């Protein structure tokens, strides 16, 4: 039979956060690490419940209750600040001599190590706390590196999107690309035409058959426009259902009129989607660079095509109009 002193010495080596209590609930001895948490406290002889507040199991109020918990997980905390929470387990000593309670920090170990300035020597060599601290630091460092990478990638993605020249739904050029190419045509001094096309009845398709149907229509429209134009022309989707075609080396309104009519006719061909036929049409307005005085301004040309488009809309849709000077006033008067 070993003495309590011997037991305490053994426990110091194996579980440096243990406490030995006698049958009256008074502390007989505590392990070196536990002592380090309250270095000024005179532990021996103090009541266990005076120092620790047992939060689980709640029913345990006396030392007898506590001993009944043998083997169960205990949740407790210091009564005074810092109220570090601890986990524990109790083993009764033979012949009603009291109990051996082993404590550990549980998840509060990160704060505890800082609050109490603990070192590796404060933990038993078999305790995995040091490995856990290692992992926490290693993972935080790795996560930080990943986070930095994600931030950089996100920045690069936004930059790439801003620089993109393609409309992802239709594969056509986007407004940015259109502006860019229009500027290039003007600076190169070639003759060209700007055709602005707006779909008619597209909203009805979207509203009645859904956005997927709308997308199918837009993709079909894009296909028609690419097929009806030359490689050297630029087809751009500049809004939800608005398109601009820039046609290089064009001086003949006749050619453009024919193209516009062909485009409108092809777009009016119903598009099958999910057992339905989607029917739309289009209006178009066109201006030519040769109708303008030099130096040309991109904004003027786009505006003229726009005015012509709205003339076509007001004239009953599904048709094409050319711009002519004074059209703005006529449109205003007509409204």
């Amino acid at each position: 039979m070993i003495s309590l002193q011997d037991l305490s010495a053994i426990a110091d080596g194996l579980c440096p956060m243990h406490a030995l209590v006698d049958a009256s609930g008074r502390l007989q001895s505590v392990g070196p690490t536990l002592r380090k948490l309250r270095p000024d406290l005179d532990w021996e002889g103090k009541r266990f419940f005076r120092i620790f507040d047992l939060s689980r199991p709640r029913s345990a109020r006396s030392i007898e209750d506590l001993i009944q918990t043998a083997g169960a997980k205990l949740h407790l905390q210091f009564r005074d600040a810092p109220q570090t929470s601890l986990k524990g387990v109790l083993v009764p000593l033979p012949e009603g001599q009291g109990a051996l309670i082993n404590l550990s920090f549980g998840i509060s170990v990160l704060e505890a190590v800082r609050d109490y300035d603990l070192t590796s020597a404060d933990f038993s060599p078999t305790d995995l706390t040091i490995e856990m601290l290692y992992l926490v630091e290693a993972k935080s460092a790795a996560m930080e590196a990943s986070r930095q990478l994600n931030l950089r990638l996100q920045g690069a993605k936004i930059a790439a999107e801003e620089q993109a020249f393609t409309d992802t739904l239709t594969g056509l050029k986007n407004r940015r690309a259109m502006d860019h190419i229009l500027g290039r045509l003007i600076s190169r001094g070639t003759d060209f035409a700007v055709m602005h096309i707006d779909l008619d009845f597209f909203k009805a398709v979207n509203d009645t058959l859904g956005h997927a149907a709308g997308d199918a229509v837009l993709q079909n429209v894009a296909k028609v426009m690419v097929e009806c134009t030359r490689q050297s022309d630029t087809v751009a989707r500049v809004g939800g259902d608005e398109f601009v075609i820039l046609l290089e080396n064009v001086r003949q309104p006749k050619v453009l009129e024919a193209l516009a009519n062909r485009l409108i006719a092809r777009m009016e061909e119903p598009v099958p989607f999910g057992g339905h036929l989607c029917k739309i049409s289009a209006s178009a307005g066109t201006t030519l660079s040769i109708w303008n005085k030099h130096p040309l301004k991109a904004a003027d040309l786009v505006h003229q095509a726009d005015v012509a488009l709205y003339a076509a809309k007001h004239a009953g849709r599904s048709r094409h109009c050319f711009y002519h000077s004074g059209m703005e006033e006529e449109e205003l008067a007509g409204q």
Partner: protein
Amino acid sequence: MHGLINRAIQAFVASTYGEERWVTVMDLAGLGFTEFEAMLTYTDEQSEQMLAAMERVLERPLPEILEDLGTFLVSNPQVEALRRLLRFGGVNYVEFLHSLDDLPDRARLAVADLHLPPLELVEQAPGQFDLICQPGLPGYGSVMMGVLRAMGDDYGDLVILDHSGEKGDAEVISITLVESDFAEGRAFDLGAHSL
């Protein structure tokens, strides 16, 4: 080679020799970029091209540069996290040496796709060790020389190191611990890391 390793080399060159020298190295390497990402993986060829370019630009033998890299990894405040992780290995230098057997596993716990070749510590006599660095990472032994030297200083121990050649494909570093507590080591506070 893992981005962390490439990135460590970049940090070392940029902070020791200046950003411009690093850009010169990467221009010569001709990889099409100048910055390595720590969390991406690069081919061995890319890393080898970078190392060859570094040797030419810095005009020093590669093993010497890599040994300095090892010292940098432990002693430079920029990479304090790594020094701390190494210090978790033990409370004194000998314990730290023994923890090196676990280093590749520890590295993999931190970053799952970071594979370091195995290390094996053989105790020849009290205070006398051989560290066997298995092949798989060019210059591994040289970097470890620098790490071991700097960790000796970190613990405040006087250590003599010798790259004592090869054993099969492996590199062998012999370590002699001349004096423990030779100097004041650097403090290691378990809870110093801010979360």
